[in-house]
C-alpha cells in the first residue's frame, strides 16, 4: 500500500473534510506547495486559493480556503482556515452574482473571495 497522509481541513466553526490522502497542494505566501507522505514538517501561511487533495482512493477533493495555515508533521496535515468550503458546496451562479456585485462595489476582499470560490468550483 502506498504511503498516506492524514488530512484535516478545519474551518473556524466546523470541520470541513478529513481523510487519507496521497498528495495535498496548497498555496502559501511564497507559492504553491505540494506535500506528499513523509514530507519534512512544515508550517506555512496560506493565501486564499483552492486547495487540492488527492485522496488515497484515487478521488480528488477541492476546497476554497480564505486565509489560514497549513501544518504538516508525522504524516498528519492540518489545514486551518477562517472559512473554507468544498467545491461541491459552492453555488456557481450565486458566486458569479457575488463577484459582479463585489466588482461594482469595489470591495476587493469580497471580490477575491468570490473569485477563489469560482476557481475552486471550476476545478472540480
Amino acid at each position, binding site marked *: 500500500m502506498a504511503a498516506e497522509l492524514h488530512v*484535516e481541513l478545519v474551518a*473556524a*466553526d466546523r470541520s470541513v473534510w478529513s481523510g487519507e490522502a496521497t498528495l495535498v497542494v496548497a498555496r*502559501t505566501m511564497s507559492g504553491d506547495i505540494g506535500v506528499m507522505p513523509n514530507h519534512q514538517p512544515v*508550517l*506555512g501561511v496560506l493565501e486564499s486559493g483552492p486547495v487540492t487533495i488527492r485522496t488515497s482512493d484515487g478521488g480528488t477533493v477541492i476546497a476554497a480556503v480564505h486565509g489560514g*495555515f497549513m501544518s504538516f*508533521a508525522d504524516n498528519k496535515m*492540518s489545514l*486551518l482556515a477562517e472559512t473554507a468550503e468544498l467545491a461541491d458546496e459552492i453555488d456557481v451562479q450565486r458566486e458569479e452574482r457575488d463577484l459582479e456585485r463585489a466588482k461594482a462595489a469595489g470591495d476587493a476582499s469580497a471580490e477575491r473571495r468570490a473569485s477563489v470560490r469560482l476557481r475552486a468550483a471550476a476545478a472540480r
Partner: protein
Amino acid sequence: MGAQLRVYKRRIRSVTATKKITKAMEMIAASRVVKAQRKVAASTPYATELTRAVTAVGTGSNTKHPLTTEPETATRAAVLLLTSDRGLAGAFNSNAIKTAEQLTARLEAEGKEVDTYVVGRRGLAHYNFRERKVVESWSGFTDEPSYADAKKVAGPLIEAIEKETADGGVDELHIVYTEFVSMMTQTAVDGRLLPLRLEEVAEEAPKGEILPLFEFEPSAEDVLDALLPRYVESRIYNAMLQSAASKHAATRRAMKSATDNAGELINTLSRLANAARQAEITQEISEIVGGSAALADASAGSDR
C-alpha cells in the same frame, strides 16, 4: 363572590400566566444551551490545531515577537469583558462584572492603567451608569456569536496591542468570560491572552507529544505575524461561545426556579382562596339560620 375571594382568584390567574411564561423561557433556554454547546464543540478542532501551531512556532524557533515578549514595565492593560445583552439569567452578568472589577483593581494596584472593552448591553449599562470610561463596546450577537463577530471584537484589540504604549497602545490583553463547566456550574474566569505565556499554551496542547522541528514557509516571523492574531481571534471566539452557553444555562436555571416558585405560590393562594370560599359559605349559612330564627321568633310573638 366575596371581595376576598375575588382578590385571590385574580392573583392566581396572574401567577398562572407568569408561570406559563417562565416555563416557556426555561424550555427555550434549555434548547439553546444544547445548540451553544454544539457550537463550542464544533469550534474545538480549529482551536486545538491552532494552539499546536502556536506552540510549535513559539518553542521551535527563537523568534522574538511583540505579542510573545513581555515588556519590562507594562504600563497599560486592556480588559475585555464578555456579558450578555439580556438579563433574566440570575447572577450571570453580575458575576462576570464582579470578576472584571476585581481584575481591574488588581491591575491598577500593579500600577497599570486599564482600558475596558465590553461585549453585551448588560456590561455596558453597568459601566455607563457609573460613568466609567469604556474604550469600545459591542452588542447584539451575544446569544449566538459567529466567527465574524469574534473578528470584529478582536480587530481593535490586536490593533491596540500592536501600537506603541506611548501612542495609546496597550501592553497586555486580559479577557473576562464565564466558563461553561457543566449544565449546573458556570464560573466567571479571567485570563491573560497576550503577551502569550508559552508554557501555559504548551500545557493545553496534548500531553506526551514531542513537537517536530518545523520548516517555516515563508519564515518564522511571518508565520508568527499571521498566526497570533488568528490565535487571539479563536480564543475570543471560544470565550464568546462559552459565555453564550453559560448565559443560556443560567437563564434556564433562573427560569426553572421562577417556575417552581410560581407553582408554590399558586398552591398557597389556592388554599387561601378555598378557606375564603368556605368562610363565605359558613357565614351565609349562619346568616340564613339566624334570619329564619329571628323570623320564627317574630311570628311566634305576633300570634300571642
